[in-house]
């Protein structure tokens, strides 16, 4: 048995054309490559920090 209120929560107002600019600028475009680069950078920083502490 479907719960109407619960189902209704799954719907959201449709995006209007006036909001397109905000959506485009606010969209998270990071992909897996960006994540990998950040991971590598973070790994590099941690390696540097550990060397300095030693």
């Amino acid at each position, binding site marked *: *048995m*479907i719960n*109407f209120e619960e*189902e*209704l929560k*799954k*719907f*959201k*107002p*449709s*995006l*209007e*054309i006036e*909001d*397109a600019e905000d*959506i*485009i600028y606010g*969209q998270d*475009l*990071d*992909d*897996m*490559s*960006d994540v*990998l*680069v950040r991971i590598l950078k973070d790994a590099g920083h941690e390696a540097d920090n550990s060397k300095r502490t030693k």
Partner: protein
Amino acid sequence: MKCYICGADLTKADTCPSCGASVKTYKKLVALSNRFYNEGLEKAGVRDLTGAVNSLRQSLKLNKNNIDARNLLGLVYFEIGDVVPALSEWVISKNLQADKNIADDYMDMVRNSPAQLENINQTIKKFNIAYNYCQQDSLDLAVIQLKKVLSLNSGFIKAHLLLALLYLKNGNWDRAKIEAQKVLKLDTGNVMAKRYLKEADSMLLPGESGKLVSDIASSDSDDIIRYNSGNEMIIQPVKKSVLTRTSSIWGIVLGIVLGIAASCFLILPQRIQSITSNNQEKISQISEESDSKSAQIGDYEQKISGLQAQIEALQSQVTDYEGVDSTSAAMNSLMEAVNIYMATPSDIEGMAKALENLDLTAISDDVSPEFTDLYNTLMSNVGPQLATSYYNTGYEAYKAENYEVAITNLNKAYQYDNNNVNTLYYLGNSYYSSGDLDKAKEIYDAVITDFPNTQSAQAAQVKLAEINNSGN
């Protein structure tokens, strides 16, 4: 493929030829992204739009520079009615790859049709209004609004789903089922639509298909075929052949022909008969009038004949009166002549004038013996003088070839003195010269008869011979 660090073109090697970075994992990510793109493309090809969106999103999560995946994602969004996300994907795609990007064409398509863009905008606004009605528990208004939305854009999947949900809420299982089926027709992988369809189907018992189906099923229309397939009642229209469709046209034509035939065989004879009877009535009326006119004409003819008889009678009376008048005029003329003679016996001219209009032959029957005696007495006294006077005048006129005057005066001269042969001879010559040969012959005969052995008689004989010769 470009290096994710320096952007240089990569080779088959696992390191970047420019910066020396390891690109082995990156290459795997790109390959995985392409795999998701292919999967999304396949799903979009079979209208599993939800699945396509998921795959393409995965593809873009792995490689944001997968332009094909992004453009296809925008296209799928556009197809399901999410226009703004579609435009967003195309704008980002254009931003990532400015040249040779099909997103240009997609955006141009939308930009170059302001009416379509306005229609899209209205559709979105109305959907949001319907959504707000749902939030405010005004479900009937929401249904109305969603129907408007779908009339503007029948491919708006979210609107179909929300409407199906509202129908489920209201217990219109059949309508909910139809909406869910419409969604699945547009997007075969839509999980929400499948759930709603399942819910509706579970609520619909065989033979109790809700109001809509029952309305259709109860109708005895021959235009549909109904049969049960498992728990579902299938209603489909009957395919009509061309001949069946054209039968209505033939029916109309046949109706027109029958109408014309009916007017020819039923209405027209009656009309002709009525016209004929009217004409016959008119003819009989005219003949009656003609008969009465003929009777009147007969009466008038009788009256005319009666009047004609009266006129003749009156004319005879008038003639009698005229005779009386001429007799009295002759008496007056004689009285006047006698009076002149008694006063001045030498006034021959006055007496001639008085006796001028006295025609004794015309009144011979009406005059009294006393009148005749008086006339003879007067003539014995003045007749020769009168005759001489008229003879002279007539002879002068004869010589002057004025034969009309000559005939008048010579006649008078002979009337007053019938013993003068010259008078009679020149009278005959006057008639002869004037061309009245019959009268001339009569006079010449009188000359020969009354005065034989005279030169005038011989001359008259010559003239008669001439007349007789010319007549032959």
